[in-house]
């Protein structure tokens, strides 16, 4: 037995190193294979990086270096490394083209957009018009002033909603400080069922197409007379909620809208209570006549109560046509018209005062940087007798999408002097030269048709 044990022990003792050696060799082989694989991977990575480097090197520098602010320069031969030559006076005078700068996103970046719009306007008119405060920018005749400096913040709140906040400042009275006001602040629910959306907060109401457009984005220096007469100088901005529905079964685009608001607008309503709210409605249709022509037709209604507790209803129409030739970056021809029919209970009797106003407008933009057009305004006054008409030809110069200058001449005639004769002046016939300079800094969302 002992002999057997000794033999077994001897055999194990003899075999053990051999097994260990075999195991070592196996482990080494595995390690070698792993190293080989790793080397192959590294080789592939190096090849891929070399290829990428080669591709990048065969291209010009990724982005031009920021030019010195005082002396922008043109790119010289040989790419970015070439010699830079200063611009000639012609180059300095040459306007720049639009471009889009979108927010870069990433860690530490803002998750919403910020934009600033500045709108400066000026007015030159007769002395008697200035005395009567009867010019386009009431009480700010013969002045140049910031009408609207607006800070916009907008973006997605979460996957279901977005929000927009606009804070603005501007000169309301000559020489007075510029107060800051909340122009708009609303949230929009984007994922409601059955093609509906809701918007709630303080907003420019979708009454007609131009009421929602901010002053700096209007195609004219001033808001049309009919809006100023029936809804006040800044149009209709209300606090409340509105819902829209876009049906998907029609062969053309149709949007139906309904809203409930406080009714704070003092020119048309003014009670400002939800007990007797301002109710609004709008239906707008769009017809794509051809690839280059589009027509939008809308009708709006707003019904509320005035501060005297009298019923006030506004009915509106709007039409807009655009012709944008194939491949053009801007429309060649834009035509538009809007009108408001007002029905308001008269104080003291049961009768209703019916008043109407409208405007028609045409604009030609044969070159990217230049546009010219004219607007005809004709309107009655909601609270008094009389009628006024005006014609306003204008010229717009757009050095870029974000910078614009406009000049206009406006001739207004009124049937009555009453109401436009403050301080012994007269606003019966008004001739004005209007100027506008507008800039946009930062983000600005694209505009709808």
């Amino acid at each position, binding site marked *: 037995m002992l002999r057997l044990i000794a033999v077994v022990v001897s055999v194990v003792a003899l075999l053990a190193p051999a097994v260990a050696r075999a195991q070592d060799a196996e482990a080494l082989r595995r390690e070698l294979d792993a190293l080989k694989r790793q080397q192959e991977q590294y080789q592939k990575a190096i090849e891929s990086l070399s290829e990428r480097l080669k591709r990048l090197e065969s291209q010009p520098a990724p982005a031009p270096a920021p030019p010195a602010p005082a002396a922008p320069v043109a790119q010289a031969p040989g790419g970015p490394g070439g010699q830079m030559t200063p611009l000639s006076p012609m180059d300095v005078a040459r306007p720049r083209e639009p*471009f889009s700068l979108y927010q870069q996103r990433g860690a530490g970046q803002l998750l919403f957009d910020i934009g600033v719009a500045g709108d400066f306007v000026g007015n030159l008119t007769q002395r008697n018009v200035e005395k009567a405060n009867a010019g386009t920018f009431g009480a700010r005749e013969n002045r140049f002033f910031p009408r609207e400096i607006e800070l916009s913040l907008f973006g997605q709140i979460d996957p279901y909603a977005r929000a927009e906040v606009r804070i603005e400042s501007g000169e309301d009275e000559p020489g007075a400080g510029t107060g800051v006001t909340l122009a708009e602040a609303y949230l929009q629910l984007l994922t409601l069922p059955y093609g509906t959306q809701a918007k709630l907060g303080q907003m420019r109401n979708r009454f007609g197409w131009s009421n929602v457009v901010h002053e700096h984005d209007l195609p004219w220096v001033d808001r049309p007379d009919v809006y100023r007469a029936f809804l006040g100088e800044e149009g209709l901005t209300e606090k409340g909620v509105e819902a829209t529905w876009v049906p998907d079964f029609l062969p053309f685009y149709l949007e139906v809208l309904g809203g409930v608001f406080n009714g704070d607008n003092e020119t048309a309503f003014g009670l400002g209570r939800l007990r007797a709210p301002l109710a609004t409605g709008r239906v707008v249709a*769009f017809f794509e006549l051809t690839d280059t022509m589009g027509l939008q037709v809308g009708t709006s209604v707003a019904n509320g109560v005035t501060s005297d507790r009298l019923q006030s209803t506004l009915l509106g129409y709007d039409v807009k046509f655009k012709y944008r030739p194939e491949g053009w970056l801007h429309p060649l021809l834009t035509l538009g018209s809007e009108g408001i029919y007002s029905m308001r209970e008269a104080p003291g009797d049961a009768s209703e005062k019916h008043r109407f106003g409208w405007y028609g407008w045409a604009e030609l933009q044969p070159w990217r940087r230049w546009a010219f057009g004219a607007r005809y305004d004709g309107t009655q006054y909601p609270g008094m007798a009389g009628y006024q008409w005006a014609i306003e030809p204008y010229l717009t110069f757009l050095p870029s999408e974000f910078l614009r200058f406009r000049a206009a001449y406006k001739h207004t005639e009124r049937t009555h002097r009453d109401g436009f004769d403050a301080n012994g002046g007269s606003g019966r016939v008004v001739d004005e030269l209007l100027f506008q300079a507008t800039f946009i800094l930062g983000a600005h969302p694209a505009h709808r048709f």
Partner: protein
Amino acid sequence: MKRLLVLILSVLAAASVLTSGAHAARKLKVVATIPDLKSLTEAVGGDLVEVESLTRGTQNFHEAEVRPSMMLKLRRADAVVENGLGLDAWADVAIDASNNASIVRGGRGRIDISRNVEVLEVPSTRVDRSMGDVHPQGNPHFSLDPGLAPVITQNIADGLARVTPENRAAFEQNRQAFLARLETEMVKWTKAMEPVKGAKVVVFHPVYVYFLTRFGLVQAATLEDRPGIPPSPQHLVTVIRQMKEEKIKAILVEPWNDVKLANRVAEEAGAKALVMASAVGAVKGADNYIAAIDYNVGMLSKALR
């Protein structure tokens, strides 16, 4: 009463079968922001999708007008395919106004094809608007680089499968078939471009950088002063001199660029201005993705020889 109940249940069952049949037969409605993506989505989606584009190949995608007719297309869409990197940022306005919950940002039907694309010309310095139309996220004109088709179509297939998971295999099969066809064409294109490899070209706007890189060509200069900014006479003189010195034979132009100007510069420099298929449908004969690339390869390989 029992009979009535049976009748109602039978009607409901029949309606359910019919509805499910109709649903199965219904094609997925997809809207692409640009025609290149329409073509690629059709290749991936095959018979299972019906694709519309918001723009035409003859339009400048940077500045498309947001028309309500776009919103109507989007209202009916099950999915929207967007380029991303700021090229079609205007689509956000149309999408938000389309009242379609499934395609708003974050919705399952929102497909961004720039995901995983190796972006070129990403600015490495601070950018501002004095530099022209600089895209802070990099050059967004990558859709007509055939080498990026696998990534783009993968994004499309994944997005479509999010909307109809049951069709994932079919989308992948279509994608593979398309990529195989593209591979065959790629061999032909590479051969055609081989003799002109390394040649320099001038472009009007930096739209072709991905395409040129893919085939080993070099973008030597742009006619625009800075991206999106039209050329000054001084800049043109500089470019003409460079073209003469470096014997550059071609200026690549998009259909909506100032072709007359490009022709004048080319004439001065002893070169040719080539109106390229900057997108599917931009020129006659470039009706789909492969045809557009084929057109560009044919045009360049002949002109640069």
